């Protein structure tokens, strides 16, 4: 659930080098930053490393932030850039979309009633996770900001520095792509 922005005096104190104030900022925003990092890596350990990288960058760049502005969009934009750059530089591995039997769930599956019965909700969730991992990076960030942080289109656009229309289109395409992957599986289940 989304929390209100941190108080400006905390930001000012952190800008002055107050580590306790910065710790409050970390505590306040660790959830959305970790969520973005997790969506990028699909691994809690790597997501923590990445989230720490984000907060170190926030500490170094905090002097350039204007305290009269809301911190959340600025911080999440920084988080997005750090995560995407890390993903591109380090070529962080993401989980495979393929299921245990090697089938790609994006392809229409044969209607095997026995196989359909084996498809549990857990498997469905895992398939969805795998499908999310295959989305382009900025799509993953957008769906995370929308569905985890519950940000509006306008807020996401501001945080990412993209037009609202672009955000809407990418969010629509991401959801549609995931639905197309899950559709056949759900049909088999149903």
């Amino acid at each position, binding site marked *: 659930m989304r929390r209100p922005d941190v108080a400006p005096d905390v930001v000012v104190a952190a800008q002055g080098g107050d580590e306790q104030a910065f710790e409050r900022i970390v505590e306040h925003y660790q959830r959305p930053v970790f969520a973005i990092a997790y969506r990028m890596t699909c691994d809690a350990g790597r997501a923590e490393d990445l989230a720490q990288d984000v907060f170190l960058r926030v500490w170094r760049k905090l002097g350039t932030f204007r305290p009269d502005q809301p911190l959340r969009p600025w911080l999440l934009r920084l988080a997005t850039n750090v995560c995407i750059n890390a993903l591109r530089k380090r070529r962080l591995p993401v989980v495979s979309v393929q299921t245990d039997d090697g089938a790609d769930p994006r392809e229409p599956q044969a209607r095997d009633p026995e196989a359909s019965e084996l498809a549990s909700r857990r498997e469905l969730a895992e398939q969805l996770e795998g499908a999310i991992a295959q989305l382009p990076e900025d799509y993953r960030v957008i769906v995370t900001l929308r569905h985890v942080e519950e940000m509006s289109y306008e807020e996401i656009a501001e945080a990412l520095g993209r037009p609202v229309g672009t955000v809407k289109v990418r969010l629509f395409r991401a*959801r549609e792509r995931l639905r197309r992957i899950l559709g056949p599986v759900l049909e088999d289940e149903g």
Partner: protein
Amino acid sequence: MTGCEGGRELAQAYLDGTLSGDERAHFEGHLHACPSCRRMVAEYRWVFTGLGEPAIPPVPAGFRARMMARLAQSRRRQRVWQSVVAAAAMLAVGTTLLALMGGVPEALTARLRQVDPMAIPQAVWQAVEGLAGGAAAVSGDWLSHVPGGSLVIGAALALLGAQSILVFRWRTLASLNGENRPRVLE
């Protein structure tokens, strides 16, 4: 399953909660009559659930403490680097000035000839030793955190050695009498 024309946009907006009251009522009426769109909304509902907050694992316990420890380590490194850079800058300025002056000026060497090195107060040597001890402690701490720190510390020790030789040489020159002084001090 693609539903009716425009159904995908409406289904997403419906689950997003961005439809107006009239639009919502109209679409719900359509859903009652259209199994295809009903199915599509059910599929989207799965997607929305999978993308939501519960699908993300909790932030690992102790994350904040580890983060702050890493920040403290980073700040310590930064301070050491700043000290090294400041010392290097001072060294560069000093050597540049000496080079511009063409060596030790005559006025200084004349004064040095009058100084008895043995008369330098003990407190000065103690202060130098104290500074060297502090530098060694900081270097040791730095060595444990900075990759390649051993190289820099080795270079610093070499500089210190060279400086000691120069000081020894300087003291020797300063204690020489007039006939044996090298020409550079004339």
